[in-house]
């Protein structure tokens, strides 16, 4: 699934340089039906999320449903000051740190694996299916296995050891699949030209491949960060005594019935949107810069 996302701006263009049949004349009736379906889908996609953002800005009388009761930042303050809602600030910190570590490892390991998978080698199919297995295996089961494994080895489960590994088993397959899509569009002529000019393998990677593949690497980082930051099932049995943010949200859904829950939803979604915006923005920026320097 990741394939398209990664290099959207460059891939689709050659495939569908001309719009779509029937490319001339009026719209058939199906256009209007499908446009309505699409609109409904987008409304259903964003509508509920929008509701909880709005409801999180109620004042102290606020409840879990409409109508809005006043407006204030009360529940945001409540979220970070009240003890009964748990250690939101601590888990927030941990989740961000963990996501950054996961992102760095995911980008490096996926890039190397992407390089490796460009040529066939003995056992490549085995590694590939191991990766697909890691992607589709039920997260809770894997998490339990990891937890039991740490227990059997006498290691303490914690967010920076067992949960880190458990999350990587989820982010790496996505990262490598995105790399596949990115690499398949890499023109090997550039790499060979670098070799012909006397570049070493490391120089060709550093000076040719990484700059050319930069948008794809940003996409891998986006997957790494957001999938780790929101990861829940695999972390549940592996995070040890200190919660990550999704685990904190999970325990809140079970016992908090105030708009604090929505306030937390608003805060964590803002973080996600900032990360998504920064990633997509930098991809567009890189592409644009490239476009202008190619012309100049």
């Amino acid at each position: 699934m990741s394939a398209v996302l990664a290099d959207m701006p460059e891939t689709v263009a050659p495939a569908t340089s001309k719009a779509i049949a029937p490319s001339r004349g009026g719209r058939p009736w199906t256009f209007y039906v499908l446009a309505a379906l699409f609109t409904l889908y987008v409304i259903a996609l964003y509508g509920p999320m929008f509701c909880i953002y709005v409801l999180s800005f109620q004042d102290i009388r606020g409840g879990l449903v409409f109508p809005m009761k006043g407006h204030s930042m009360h529940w945001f303050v409540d979220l970070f000051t009240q003890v009964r809602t748990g250690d939101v600030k601590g888990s927030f910190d941990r989740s961000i740190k963990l996501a950054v570590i996961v992102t760095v490892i995911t980008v490096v390991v996926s890039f190397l694996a992407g390089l490796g998978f460009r040529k066939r080698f003995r056992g490549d199919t085995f590694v590939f299916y191991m990766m697909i297995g890691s992607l589709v295996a039920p997260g809770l089961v894997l998490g339990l296995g990891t937890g039991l494994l740490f227990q059997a080895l006498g290691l303490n489960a914690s967010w920076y050891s067992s949960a880190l590994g458990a999350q990587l088993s989820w982010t790496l397959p996505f990262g490598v699949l995105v790399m596949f899509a990115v690499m398949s569009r890499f023109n090997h002529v550039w790499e060979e030209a670098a070799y012909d000019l006397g570049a070493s393998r490391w120089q060709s990677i550093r000076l040719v491949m990484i700059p050319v593949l930069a948008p794809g690497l940003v996409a891998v980082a986006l997957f790494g960060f957001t999938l780790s930051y929101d990861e829940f099932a695999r972390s549940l049995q592996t995070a040890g005594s200190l919660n990550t943010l999704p685990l904190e949200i999970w325990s809140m859904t079970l016992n908090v019935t105030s708009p604090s829950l929505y306030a937390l939803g608003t805060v964590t979604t803002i973080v996600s949107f900032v990360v998504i915006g920064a990633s997509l923005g930098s991809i567009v920026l890189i592409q644009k810069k490239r476009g202008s320097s190619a012309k100049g």
Partner: protein
Amino acid sequence: MQPSSSPAQTSPRANLAGWLYVSPLVLVLVPFFVAPILVVLAASFFATDGFGGLTPGFTLASYVEVLHSALTLKLYLATIKFTVLTWVFTLIIGFFVAYFLVFHVRNQLLAIGLFLLCTVPFWTSNIIRMISWIPLLGKEGLINQALLAVGVIHQPLEVLLFSDLAVVIAYVHQLTIFMIVPIFNSMARIDKKLIEAAIDAGASRFDIMRLIVVPMSKSGIALGTIFVVSIVMGDFFVVKVMSGGGSASVVSAFYEDVGVLQYPTAAASAVLLTLVLVAIVSLILRTVDIRQEITR
């Protein structure tokens, strides 16, 4: 990815280089995917003292217990019901949304923009997106309020939230994206000349859909199906929260077992579920070469 020689013809040097590149990936997947699966497999054969203590040994007692329990059949039927319903709805919505974007939106940039609009929620928290249905579907939620106001109903509907309906709504809301992306990817690769030719040869739009678009999107549908089926079958928190505890699936029962430290029973049930999943996924994989699909 370059079409290259089969692995059998690769040189020892190429094999070594390949393995060097993927070694970091393997070093993560072995301890955090392969080992945990083996641990769960081993635990399923162990005996338990009922308090979380495991006695190494080999007994099939847990399997006998799981297979003999009437509950198991019920859990699988519930899981299959959720999976099939979710699959049907995500497929229909996903197919037509992708079709609309590829074949009806004439402006390339607009199509990419709308596509990204559909994918952004994928990078935000699943749990938050799930609980965001509460203000809509609840007994005092927006939908009930609206229906009461219009006069369609006189008592608020209680089946909207904390029911099987709510579970399916939450799944479809979260997972349609996993259908849209791979189907969009396949459809975007269909050569538009093919469709122009079909129109010139007198094909109706229905014929084009039946004879060109559907067959050529098959691999995307297969990929999306793998994602949707494996996520629904491996899920527990949507079932737990959205059904209000009223319904259970295989993995949510596994979660309860782990909660009361019934590790061997939980492990046996997990092993069975994994076998079922592997069978389904490999059946789907027979119809599509996923590696080719991603890298083509």
